[in-house]
């Protein structure tokens, strides 16, 4: 047994104590990120209240510069951009939340089953996960979107089908470790059933992991949807931010004029802010949830 030096124990004792205290709260950047996200969400949900124009009907001259009537100007058809932006936020919101929940919860449950059951079930699930992991997600999503037609529902199904994998893997590893803990074995020896173990011991442990995973998932889903829309594979009826950018880029004069400064930049900014805020929040929560948690490399 290695004899631990005084300094090491002492320094790690007080250092980890200090760190533990610090980590109970979101850092300043985490709080900013949260505030930003809530603002964006609020604006999107309350879209009709925030703008008087419609995101789909022409309401002004085409390619107008920003003005009081049209705070972000209009696109080549004359549709108000600010309206498009706030309504488009709804798409991102829905896609992000829906995917996160479906993939997060689904992945979590599958992970728990795989980890706890073990044996053949586990091996099958792991094999499936391995195959899905190898498949490069974007090309597959492009192919599937191409074949099944663009719609928000398709996206969300396809995205979820890919995203559950990471959560499942992380949850499974945790469950594998937990399963061997002394207190679980004691509970089993007292006759505890699977359901009891799940809701008393596993879920509270898994929940923080899954929550952080879900935030990451939401971010990736939003980016994926934007990417696909930007490529032109998006649902034409939705006015997602990616689609606004796609329309902007389809406009022939976009490179030679100044219109990109508001037409392209505003959805771009909206997307970047949302994604970055989600990422920062995710990292912060990760640190709080479990300081010992292994960092997933993205």
């Amino acid at each position, binding site marked *: 047994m290695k004899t631990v030096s005084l300094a090491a124990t002492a320094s790690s004792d007080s250092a980890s104590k200090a760190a533990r205290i610090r980590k109970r709260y979101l850092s300043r950047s985490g709080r900013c990120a949260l505030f930003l996200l809530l603002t964006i969400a609020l604006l999107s949900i309350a879209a009709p209240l925030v703008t008087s124009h419609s995101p789909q009907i022409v309401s002004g001259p085409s390619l107008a510069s920003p003005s009081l009537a049209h705070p972000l100007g209009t696109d080549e058809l004359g549709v108000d951009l600010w309206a498009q932006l706030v309504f488009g936020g709804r798409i991102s919101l829905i896609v992000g939340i829906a995917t996160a929940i479906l993939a997060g919860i689904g992945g979590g449950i599958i992970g728990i089953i795989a980890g706890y059951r073990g044996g053949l079930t586990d091996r099958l699930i792991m094999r499936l996960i391995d195959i899905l992991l190898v498949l490069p997600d974007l090309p597959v999503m492009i192919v599937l979107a191409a074949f099944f037609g663009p719609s928000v529902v398709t996206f969300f199904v396809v995205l979820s089908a890919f995203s559950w994998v990471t959560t499942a893997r992380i949850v499974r590893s945790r469950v594998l470790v937990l399963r061997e803990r002394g207190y679980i074995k004691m509970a089993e020896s007292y006759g505890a059933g699977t359901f009891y173990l799940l809701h008393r011991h596993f879920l509270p442990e898994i929940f923080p992991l899954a929550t952080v995973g879900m935030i990451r998932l939401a971010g990736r889903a939003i980016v994926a949807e934007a990417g696909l829309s930007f*490529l032109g594979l998006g649902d034409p009826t939705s006015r997602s931010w990616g689609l606004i950018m796609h329309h902007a880029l389809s406009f022939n004069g976009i490179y030679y004029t100044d219109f990109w400064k508001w037409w392209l930049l505003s959805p771009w900014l909206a997307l970047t802010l949302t994604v970055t805020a989600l990422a920062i929040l995710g990292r912060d929560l990760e640190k709080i949830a479990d300081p010992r948690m292994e960092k997933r490399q993205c």
Partner: protein
Amino acid sequence: MQHIVKNLSEYLLTFLVILTLNFVLPRVMPGDPFLFLSSDIGEEIARFTPAQEAAYRQQYGLHRPWPQQYGIYLLRLLRGDLGYSIYYNQEVMAILLARLPWTLLLVLSAVFLSTIFGTLLGSLSAAFRDRAPDRIIYPLMITMSEIPPFLLGLVLLFVLAASMHLFPLSGAMTHFARHENIWSTLTDIAHHATLPVLTLTLVRTGAMYLLARNAMTTVLTRDYIRTARAKGLGPARILARHSLRNAMIPVITRVFLSLGGLVGSAILVENVFAYPGLGRLMRESVMVHDYPMIQGIFLMVTLFVLLANGLADLAYRRLDPRIAEKRGGRS
């Protein structure tokens, strides 16, 4: 030896699944493939007469039963025949091979540059952990690693290319240009490739940096580094033979693994910069529903990713002697 066989069979299995998926998908999607070809979705319009339709149908063997089609499909693959592109009127393989080098140029340059910069900055950060250099670089890198590549590409395109006219807006080489010598050609290529490579590199550097920083920090606290110092070895030797040699193991394996992830980013970035690689090709094919083309690209891309994963595994085994041999080793 056993591992190589075991791994190989796993990869083969995965590849088989992908092949099957590739085969099944176009045949189960709703609607008739040929219906789409006559639509106006996308920028290009193509129309076929019923006679041409019938001819193509015959040629693609779409009238045969599925298992037979599958057999033919596999056989063709073994010969390297990926089919015939409906839209481009050429062998799929030929088109792929023509476009592949551009994508490789982007991806390999990005990987190379991001690894070098990431490792350098990461080691620097690790050596000065929590002090001034680290405090500045770390948050910068974190932010950079989170920005989606196509967003980054867009802003670079508009600011540096459209606005400031420093770089071309699209393409891999200037159209219709005549070059006197090889240098002029290379410069032209480099000029066009700068922005896409820059985008991919910036995005990847963040992740590499974090990995290198972590790996280096861990290594620097290890006992064997202290032993090396106690032996009075020079700092250069300690860095090269002791620190880096250990820290590089996770970094190098990650480099190979990230090749796979980079493919997705490359597809988007190529489209932002209208760069004529496989990514752009993919979008074009999807726009016109050129199924053989789509399948061909998909196959090539997946094969590439599988290869990268396999190489990662191999590299890891070679680099770490603790894994290298399973028997032997008493404790």
